[in-house]
């Protein structure tokens, strides 16, 4: 029965929505900044999945090209973000988001 199902782009969009929601909830729930970063990656992946699903549905290669740019932005974001986490950890010996509530050094 499952094997006979026709997989339309809607299936991929629903999956991307679920993935994005899990990432958003995780970002709000978790306190460890590293895990919060991973949740951002989940949300970016949901966006990528949407782009590629639309590229297939509309026969437009632009959707796949934009995934490359998303990947570059994700890589840059992780590099800078992890550097910030390392800098905070040097100072505070902790990476919990609730403890970093002062803007002065």
């Amino acid at each position, binding site marked *: 029965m499952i094997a006979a199902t026709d997989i339309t782009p809607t299936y991929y969009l629903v999956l991307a929505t679920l993935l994005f929601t899990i990432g958003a909830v995780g970002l709000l729930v978790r306190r460890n900044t590293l895990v919060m970063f991973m949740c951002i990656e989940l949300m970016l992946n949901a966006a990528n999945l949407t782009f*590629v699903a639309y590229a297939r549905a509309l026969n437009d290669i632009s959707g796949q090209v934009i995934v490359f*740019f998303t990947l570059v932005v994700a890589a840059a974001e992780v590099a800078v973000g992890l550097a910030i986490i390392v800098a905070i950890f040097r100072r505070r010996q902790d990476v919990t988001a609730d403890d970093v509530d002062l803007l002065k050094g």
Partner: protein
Amino acid sequence: MEAAVFFVCALVVLAGAFGVVLARNPVHSALYLLTTLVGVAVLFLQLHAALVAAIQIVVYASAIVVLFLFVITLLGVDRHETLSEPHKFQRPAAVVFGLLVAVQIIVLAGRHWTTGTRPSDRAPLDPERTGNVERLARSLFTDYIWAFEITAVLLVIAVVGGVVLARRSGQRAGAPPPAPVDAVETVEQDA
């Protein structure tokens, strides 16, 4: 066949995503993230995006997850994870807001289609399933050449910023040393 692959991959992706959020240990979270990324890569293959799937594995599953694991092991943050929640209504509110986001996406996606719902009459992306590197490269280096150049600048900025931030000698010559923020402040490392 396509349906079976889709449902198996969807299960893997969602299980990995839940694992990222629910795992207590950051190392486990990173490994669950890897599961999700590989599942998404297989879905890219299903969607006739072979090159994107390969890049997903190379950049995300290798580089980014390894970077996460490096930082986790470097900092040793997997030892203590506080399980207590300081704000009482934080978690229920987060779940409610997350579900609100999902409802918003579904409602908006159901009503506002700026791309049009009809299938395009352009040529299929990858009819022979042999990879579409040529077409992708042609689009990337003609239509999106400026975006491509700007991503190069962005990467340089990110590398320089990462080096500057993670450098050990963070204190400038004239600036006074920062005052201790709380009682458990450890000794500052002078460079």
